[in-house]
């Protein structure tokens, strides 16, 4: 006889005649009590008996998980070639065993999916990804919708513009200003360390002015807008799609492109250049602060030098880029949002994808402009 006791339940192995044995359970067989010591219980089935009976006549309570462990132990004994049976169960214990183990297997309503190879699976997933992203469909739909909007400007939901411009523009102003001020400041610091060695302190203004207006302010502003507004657009449209609001729009005879996509595209086309001009100003202000505090250059001298170095084209070229940044961010965000599927997880995926793709697109567009400006000597 081998005993095993735990608070709430006990089990003992009793050797019978003819190689038969019995596991006699007692007390309350609950998962919380028995799972920690189940390995010890499992050891009681060894050495194998010709026939092992699980006697549950002393068990008052049996819960679902404990039933599963018990049935699994019985199946293990059967698989080892012995015979096994559960005996003595009564009342609620019997009912629990019937619920888990005695009913006939219930067939699935649907046929199980056929097993497919890994290459097949990769191919299918790739096709699904291409099909679900609907990138080409989106571009085609946008072109058709642009033609409609040109024919009938009322096609665009203009009333949405002020709200969107407030959210994408005014609301993002503080973060755009803080980031660009710091970028101007850091750039000026880095430049000052080098230029000081050559007594060329005043050229900090040239370096900061040109780098901020041509590159840093447009790029940083676009990155902030992609992370803020691009993500918001994608999440908003994705949620509308999974909650059938896009379908509802269509059944009301409203085009999602005119109603949702174009207002967002127009918003970023207008807002990004405006934010960039303000970012230029605050970036240069960051440079002035460093020049005044660290290089003994007056604000007046710094501004005169900046004026000499930075032309109107430098500011304009930066703003021109942001128009394309805005177009990329808004189109990517809307496309990802409209293609979202699969509930909250799908919206999350669409939002992540929108931000990552937008950032990639911003860098690519920036590189293209840099090459073009260089090629044309601009």
């Amino acid at each position: 006889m081998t005993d095993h006791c735990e608070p709430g339940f006990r089990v003992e192995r009793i050797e019978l005649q003819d190689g038969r044995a019995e596991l006699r359970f007692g007390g309350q067989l609950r998962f919380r009590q028995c799972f920690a010591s189940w390995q010890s219980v499992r050891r009681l089935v060894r050495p194998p008996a010709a026939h092992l009976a699980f006697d549950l006549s002393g068990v008052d309570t049996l819960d679902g998980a404990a039933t599963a462990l018990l049935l699994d132990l019985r199946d293990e004994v059967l698989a080892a070639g012995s015979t096994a049976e559960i005996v003595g169960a009564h009342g609620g214990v019997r009912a629990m065993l019937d619920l888990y183990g005695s009913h006939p297997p219930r067939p699935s309503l649907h046929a199980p999916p056929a097993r497919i190879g890994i290459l097949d699976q990769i191919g299918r997933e790739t096709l699904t990804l291409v099909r679900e992203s609907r990138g080409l469909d989106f571009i085609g739909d946008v072109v058709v919708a642009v033609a409609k909007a040109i024919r009938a400007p009322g096609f665009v939901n203009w009333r949405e513009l002020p709200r969107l411009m407030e959210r994408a523009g005014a609301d993002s102003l503080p973060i755009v200003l803080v980031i660009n001020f710091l970028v101007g400041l850091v750039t000026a610091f880095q430049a000052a360390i080098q230029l000081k060695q050559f007594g060329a302190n005043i050229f900090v203004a040239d370096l900061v002015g040109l780098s901020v207006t041509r590159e840093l302010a447009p790029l940083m502003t676009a990155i902030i807008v992609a992370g803020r507004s691009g993500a918001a657009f994608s999440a908003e449209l994705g949620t509308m799609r999974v909650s059938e609001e896009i379908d509802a729009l269509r059944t009301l005879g409203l085009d999602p492109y005119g109603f949702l996509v174009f207002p967002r595209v127009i918003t970023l086309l207008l807002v990004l250049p405006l934010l960039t001009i303000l970012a230029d100003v605050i970036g240069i202000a960051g440079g002035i602060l460093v020049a005044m505090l660290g290089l003994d250059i007056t604000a007046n001298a710094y501004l005169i030098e900046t004026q000499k170095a930075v032309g109107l084209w430098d500011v304009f070229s930066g703003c021109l880029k942001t128009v394309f940044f805005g177009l990329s961010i808004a189109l990517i965000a809307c496309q990802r949002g409209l293609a979202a599927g699969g509930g909250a997880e799908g919206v999350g995926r669409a939002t992540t994808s929108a931000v990552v793709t937008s950032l990639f697109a911003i860098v690519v567009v920036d590189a293209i402009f840099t090459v073009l400006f260089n090629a044309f000597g601009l």
Partner: protein
Amino acid sequence: MVEAEHLSVGYGDSVVLENLDFSVPRGDVFAILGGSGSGKSTLLRALIGLEEPLRGTIRIAGEALAREGPPAYGVLFQSGALFGSMTLAENVTLPLAKWTTLDRHAIDAIVRSKLRLVGLEGFENHLPAEISGGMKKRAGIARALALDPSLLFLDEPSAGLDPVTSAELDDLIVTLNTSLGMTTVLVTHELRSIFAIVKHCIMVDGRTRTIIARGDPAALRDQSADPQVRAFFNPQSRAA
């Protein structure tokens, strides 16, 4: 009112239902029934123009589905699908502002009357997030009725509602049908609703991809020899 001929629906290469023929008489309350995954929602999406049929034709009031212009029917989606950033009044206003040349005053009057019709008077300025599930469905019906369509499609109108709210919604559907003569096509699982309001139905089956039963729901319940149909209408006998 609605006619489907040799209609096959699905997604891409995947055919969900094929070669369906049925018609919905004017003034009927007609249900599309079937188990989960049987394709009834796909069929509904094709009927309301959200999915292109793979084959066959759909006619509404004798005309092919129009892709442009004001819709010939109203649709209530399962969740209500109200626009979350708009108040209930703005939701109902949307189709009126788009498809009519009425002035603001006239539109407001119509919107108030539609919301009163569905029992939501006084909730005009509430956002969808501020009202219950049943109220959202009522508001969805008000929006679907904005342009006074003669045909209404309802996707699982009782889903997620308590029995009292569900019965109230059924009453509303019956009222719209009897008072306005509105043809109603609905997809539902709710047996109580089916027997209370539906005059005719079809039952689709995803395995055979066909219509396996059609007619009066009570007659199908009592007389159908098809075990699947009997099990659908008498779930308690299956459990027994």
